């Protein structure tokens, strides 16, 4: 959130033109903490709300800030379709590997084997590799950072504001209460240390290798994975049909 706020200040875009939209969840509350036009919508629907905003007023710089469950589970369909259409919005996904708001349940990014209140014996499901999903869906920009990569994160959020089309950054964030304590990561700081030890900056690595497995001592890859210029979405205009 600090990175987002800093990026807004540095963007050169008037603050009145920035709009933040979020869904429901701990991360969804960000909309209420920013002193810009902000919309805290329903669970999963931040992206289509943001699409409506952006298309109705293309002058706005629209950012969606929400959680992994909100964006990739209940809102997963909107996520891939907005990326496919390449609507010119930026999405910041705070991935804490669980449903924090409701007390630490299994989510679409919970690593295989990780324990949550609804996977007490370890998750039997394979999680989404979000950068892979977004790349396949057609996003113009896809990155992943963690809360220790503040410089890179701010830089990329700033870049996303001006990047035409759909851009997406996954941010791995600690959730000591909802996720950490069930998985032998005691404090938020310990999860940060884990990121520090295991993260490898690997821009351009094959995106199918970006899955996260917290059990093993596999690296967690972070970086910028996709930066391309597919045509952004534009509503059909008279000149297109004449």
């Amino acid at each position, binding site marked *: 959130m600090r990175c987002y706020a800093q990026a807004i200040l540095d963007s050169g875009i008037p603050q009145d033109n920035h709009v933040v939209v979020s869904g429901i969840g701990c991360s969804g509350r960000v909309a209420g903490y920013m002193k810009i036009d902000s*919309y*805290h919508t*329903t669970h999963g629907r931040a*992206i289509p*709300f943001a699409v*409506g905003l952006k298309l*109705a007023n293309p002058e706005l710089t629209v950012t969606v800030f929400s959680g992994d469950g909100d964006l990739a589970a209940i809102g997963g369909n909107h996520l891939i*379709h907005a990326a496919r259409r390449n609507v010119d919005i930026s999405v910041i996904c705070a991935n804490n590997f669980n449903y924090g708001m409701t007390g630490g349940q299994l989510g679409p990014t919970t690593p295989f084997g990780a324990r949550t209140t609804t996977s007490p014996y370890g998750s039997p499901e394979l999680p989404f590799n979000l950068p892979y999903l977004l790349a396949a869906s057609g996003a113009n920009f896809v990155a992943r950072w963690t809360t220790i990569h503040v410089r890179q994160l701010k830089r990329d959020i700033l870049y996303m504001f001006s990047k035409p089309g759909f851009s997406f950054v996954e941010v791995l964030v600690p959730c000591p209460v909802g996720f950490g304590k069930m998985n032998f990561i005691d404090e938020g700081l310990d999860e940060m240390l884990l990121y520090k030890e295991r993260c490898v900056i690997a821009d351009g690595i094959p995106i199918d290798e970006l899955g996260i497995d917290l059990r093993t001592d596999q690296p967690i890859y972070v970086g910028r994975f996709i930066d391309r210029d597919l045509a952004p979405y534009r*509503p059909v205009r008279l000149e297109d049909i004449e």
Partner: protein
Amino acid sequence: MTSSGVLTGKHFFQGDEACAEGAIAAGCRFFGGYPITPSTEIAERLAHRFPEIGGVFIQMEDEMGSMAAVLGASAAGARAMTATSGPGFSLMMENIGLAVMMELPCVVVNVQRGSPSTGLPTLPGQSEVMQARWGSHGDYGLAAFSPWSPQEMFDLTIHSFNVADRYRIPILLMADEVVGHMVERVVIPREDQITRWERKRPDPNNKDAFEPFLAEDPDLVPPLAYAGEGYRVHFTGLTHDELGYPDMSAETHHRLVTRLVEKINYNSEKIVQTEDHFMDDARIVVVSYGSTARSARRAVKDARQEGIPVGFLRLVSLWPFPTNQIRELADHVDSFIVAEMNLGQMALEVERHVRRPVTGVHHAGGAMMAPDRILDAIREVANTGYTHLR
């Protein structure tokens, strides 16, 4: 055609097409929807018509997305609409509640088909009138209209945008397959004869002091600020105070929800719309709406030929319910008949408001109600008083 797209003149339109033209005439410039019979022609016509007038048409991935996109567009200041039918209407419910809570004006057209579930996709129904009132969770108020002709699909679409804007509420235009697909004459007036009610807007010279959910006027409607105007507003579906920020106290919750409900109650006389005929000496009143009202009017005319003192009341608005009109009528008549294409929904509402016998003429949907069934009910009520026909 004028640059604003108003197709002034006489046309032969399907109800769905008339609805799309009504939206254009009302200044609607955003449509987000998902195809569903029998409403699809509205989306198709707008997809065709919007590019030339600068409107945004987007076919969303589902109806939850459609409704959310409409609210986003409304938050940005656009007049925005979606159109659907039963299954899609159910999917929109959560965000219709968000529209109520955020007080974002918008229009949702439901061209009703046979329900429940997938039901009868190509055939008519009127079984979502209670869902229209109560379908989203919680206590709230909104308005719903029921057109009975292609002309009224045009007129009431414009009116829906006006009422939505005036009171900052979602409007549900509850059409049915018969009206949506029937082709009739539609007269589109000159642009300068189309009334557009303005939204209440905040004072641009007092941006810092602006409280987006403070309703200072007796009508309980706060002014609406759009994204990007510099008011730095916060909108949330959480219970919020006048500044718009979450407040999880029972007091604030009661104050907010009461205002949202009272906003409709206070203004209901201005929103309610009914049409009546043959009332002067009526002892029996047939209440109906939408395409069924066409059959009801026929039946009432025929009964009058037979000398039965029966009147005809058409509900143009379904919600808020015309409480005063019905109660006043009840002072002068003996009995009510409610004809509708469902197994008894508005009949319950009429029953709730009058201490008179209420006879239902009901059919689950799938075909327009035959006037004879209503005529039979009128005869029976005339002969025996109270009866219950299904």
